[in-house]
């Protein structure tokens, strides 16, 4: 397969290029995408820290030790409902190539997305037909139990006026690298809530790239909770393509040890009357390093856009670091846009109040940190999911430096 390469290959991409064989029994259209993907990755290699979106993440550990593709594991529920199709990526290749092809056709040029296109095996496809509704949250578990790199691809397609809620967890054991690419498309009037809890293994890396396109009056609610993994990056790009589309982006990270966690969001208002509400909370302890980069772009035609972005950071101890970089790019003149950011330590008065009631210092700190993150978790409307998230948060905080 490598015979046709006619450009210089980046050294860190070489092991992946050598491992690339293409899957033997796949259709020709897919083989073409995979080939395109590996070539694009071989040419670009890993993103440089000099590129804006990657400046807060240290990828050297990942770059220096290649983690070759391994099998990913995605656990899906059975859904039998008219107008709803849910299946693994392997099943989708055979049964719903129409959906996958569309997703692959745009956006496989960035380095890790290209690598994902070359190797993706796990992940799932959800297609909800016009007007169909899935009442209960669909729970999906992305597991990992090996080393190597797991390239998962997810496609979520909601047709006009359909509705669904997804609750996805990412967890595992081992020094794996999960390279996850998620494509979400909402038709006119469609409503999707997607709640994600990332709790990867202590030595694991997680690079998640979520791309969303919203049709007219579509509503998208995203919630992400980053609790574990050595190197974790969650990128969310939303294109507000249809008029009157609304999105609500909430999330939080808790980072300790010498781990890194990044949340990167880009909301691109391309049509009039769109609304964005965004709240990101970050907690860093120990030698942890967290970052939030959030851009809201309002294009010239996107009049009457109403966007609000808020980020709050809590730094526990003197060696933890949080970087925040909010950015508004506004090219329309009749818009309401606001952003606010704050960084602080635990409030001494609150701490004393709790201790004056008999609560030991460590527990008091944990209560305050939990309360700080809860404000974001409370935006999740499903009570069961919210309780699960608070429980996961509680067990994460039990081992966080300065809260134990």
């Amino acid at each position: 397969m490598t015979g046709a390469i006619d450009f210089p290959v980046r050294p860190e991409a070489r092991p992946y290029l050598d491992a690339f064989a293409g899957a033997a029994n796949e259709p020709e259209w897919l083989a073409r995408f995979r080939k395109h993907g590996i070539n694009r990755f071989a040419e670009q290699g890993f993103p440089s820290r000099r590129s804006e979106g990657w400046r807060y993440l240290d990828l050297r550990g990942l770059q220096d030790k290649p983690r070759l593709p391994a099998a990913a594991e995605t656990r899906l529920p059975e859904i039998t409902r008219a107008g709803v199709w849910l299946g693994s990526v392997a099943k989708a290749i055979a049964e719903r190539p129409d959906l996958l092809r569309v997703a692959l056709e745009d956006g496989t040029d960035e380095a890790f997305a290209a690598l994902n296109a070359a190797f993706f095996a796990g992940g799932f496809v959800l297609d909800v037909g016009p007007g169909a509704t899935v009442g209960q949250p669909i729970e999906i578990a992305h597991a990992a139990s090996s080393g190597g790199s797991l390239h998962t691809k997810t496609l979520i397609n909601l047709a006009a006026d359909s509705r669904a809620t997804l609750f996805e967890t990412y967890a595992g054991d081992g020094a794996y690298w999960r390279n996850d690419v998620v494509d979400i498309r909402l038709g006119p009037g469609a409503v999707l809530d997607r709640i994600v809890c990332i709790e990867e293994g202590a030595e694991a890396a997680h690079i998640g790239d979520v791309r969303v396109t919203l049709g007219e009056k579509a509503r998208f609610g995203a919630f992400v909770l980053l609790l574990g993994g050595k190197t974790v990056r969650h990128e969310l790009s939303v294109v507000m393509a249809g008029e009157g589309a609304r999105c609500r982006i909430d999330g939080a990270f808790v980072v300790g040890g010498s781990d890194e966690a990044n949340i990167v969001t880009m909301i691109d208002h391309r049509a009039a009357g769109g609304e964005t509400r965004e709240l990101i909370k970050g907690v860093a302890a120990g030698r942890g390093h967290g970052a939030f980069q959030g851009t809201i772009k309002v294009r010239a035609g996107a009049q009457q856009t109403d966007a609000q972005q808020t980020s709050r950071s809590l730094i526990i101890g003197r060696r933890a670091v949080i970087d925040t970089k909010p950015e508004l790019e506004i090219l329309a003149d009749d818009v309401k846009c606001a952003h606010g950011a704050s960084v602080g330590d635990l409030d001494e008065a609150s701490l004393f109040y709790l201790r004056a009631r008999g609560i030991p210092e460590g527990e008091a700190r944990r209560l305050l940190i939990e309360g700080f993150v809860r404000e974001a978790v409370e935006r999740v409307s499903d009570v069961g999911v919210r309780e699960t998230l608070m429980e996961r948060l509680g067990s994460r905080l039990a081992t966080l430096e300065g809260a134990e």
Partner: protein
Amino acid sequence: MLEITNLHVRLNDGREILKGIDLNVGAGEVHAIMGPNGSGKSTLASVLAGREGYTVTEGSATYLGKDLLSLPADERACEGVFLAFQYPVEIPGVNNMYFLRSALNAQRRHRGENELDATQFLRVVRAKLKLLDIGEDLMQRAVNVGFSGGEKKRNEIFQMAMLEPKLAILDETDSGLDIDALRTVAGGVNGLRAADRAIVMITHYQRLLDYIEPDHVHVLQDGRIVQSGDKTLAAELERRGYGAIGDAA
């Protein structure tokens, strides 16, 4: 129960606020400490509860035979010392009920008792809420967030009722209360008077003492107790003002 001897306290910026306090509080007694603004009343309450930012330069405070000042704030609370805050702190994201259960269970652990589960705890809460005319919805909100001034003070006394301290220090519990709220709060405190519990009320005005009758009244001025007496002293203060007392001393 509490013996304070020649207590001198400085702020971390070096200013001396308490300049030799002597005070003995016995079990079952209610003491009122009155004084003008800036006399050191709230500093005394803070130092007894273990707030940071103060340095004891001289003297001692012994509580049930223990050196109170050497204990961290949470241990003091577990040993039965309670401070009703002048300005109860708002803590967003921390549920009132959850907070109070954590506090009660921390104190029970300290005493070697079993922790209460959510159901047992709720039973105790419901019984005590009635005492202070507090709605159960207030318990489901974040600690003091969005509470009115009166609700905050009632919540303090409710916490006192839940935690059943041996020594309760009420710091300006009457400030910011209208007459109805004052009655409710005073009713709550009176209901908590007991032979094995001491109460120290810190107040600027005599008003509170019309509702909670003290056994002893002390006047604090410029970091010293300048006069002590029974409840008639409070009435005299009201009539003649702090200035007159100070001159007499």
